């Protein structure tokens, strides 16, 4: 039975619960918008990295170079799209 629950996965799960609880502090505690958003950015990206490496085994095969390239490319385009849109549509008009 024990072999079915590898420590790496259990720790990954515990850590993801901790990250969720930290993110929840933003809702529970009274804090500034900037601080709250900083916490959320850190916890969300840490959570994503955790899933990618621990659970999705992104780096385990010999194709890991191509796999990480594809994921980073997707992330870069997504981040540029989001911040480019914010720049053009929101921040420019404040």
């Amino acid at each position, binding site marked *: 039975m024990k072999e079915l629950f590898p420590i790496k*996965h259990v720790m990954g799960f515990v850590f993801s619960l901790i990250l969720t609880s930290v*993110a929840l502090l933003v809702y529970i505690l009274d804090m500034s918008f900037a601080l709250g958003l900083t916490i959320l950015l850190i916890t969300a990206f840490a959570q994503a990295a955790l899933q990618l490496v621990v659970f999705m085994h992104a780096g385990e095969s010999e*194709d890991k170079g191509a796999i990480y390239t594809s994921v980073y490319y997707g992330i870069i385009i997504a981040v540029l799209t989001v911040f480019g849109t914010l720049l053009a549509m929101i921040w420019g008009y404040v």
Partner: protein
Amino acid sequence: MLEMNKDNTQPLEYSTEQGRMNILGFWIFIGAEIMLFGTLFASYFTLEGRTGAGPTGAEIFEISPVLAETLLLLTSSFTIGLGVHAMRLGRQKAMMTFFIITLVLGAAFLSFEVYEFIHYVHEGAGIQTSAFTSILLTTLGTHGAHVTFGLFWGIMIMIQVIKRGLTPETANKSFIFSLYWHFLDVVWIFIFSFVYLKGMM
């Protein structure tokens, strides 16, 4: 698949050239999905203030169902990880158990989401109410549609594993399904953080 093409030093799902390429191809698809959700988030951040005569996010979001959905999806991501781990040990029964738990958690997630959507409509926040409710329901709905699709996909794969046992092909499909499921959890984390928590701050 020809025996001579098999590499026994790798887990079953990587053991054939075709299997390796399928996994790489799926990662490229995930890269495209990241960009898809990027565009949805870009539109959401642009339109979230455009509430018109409708409610704002802070007025309609409820923390309890959102927290339940988050915990369900996080746990299901953990159990499918255990499922793949069991598969690599050759423990087909344990793997099936973990897959079933994962899909049940996924179904529970969806029922909370359906409840949530009904609640929004009762609060007067339908998809046509304002630019904000349109993009909110489109973003949540795109994620929910992915989970719904994943439920059916997961069931089909389980049927194949039961019928054919663990072969390079079925192991490969199961592993790729696990990648998809983990990815949906990642997307949800961003929705949880930047739609709900940010909206309720």
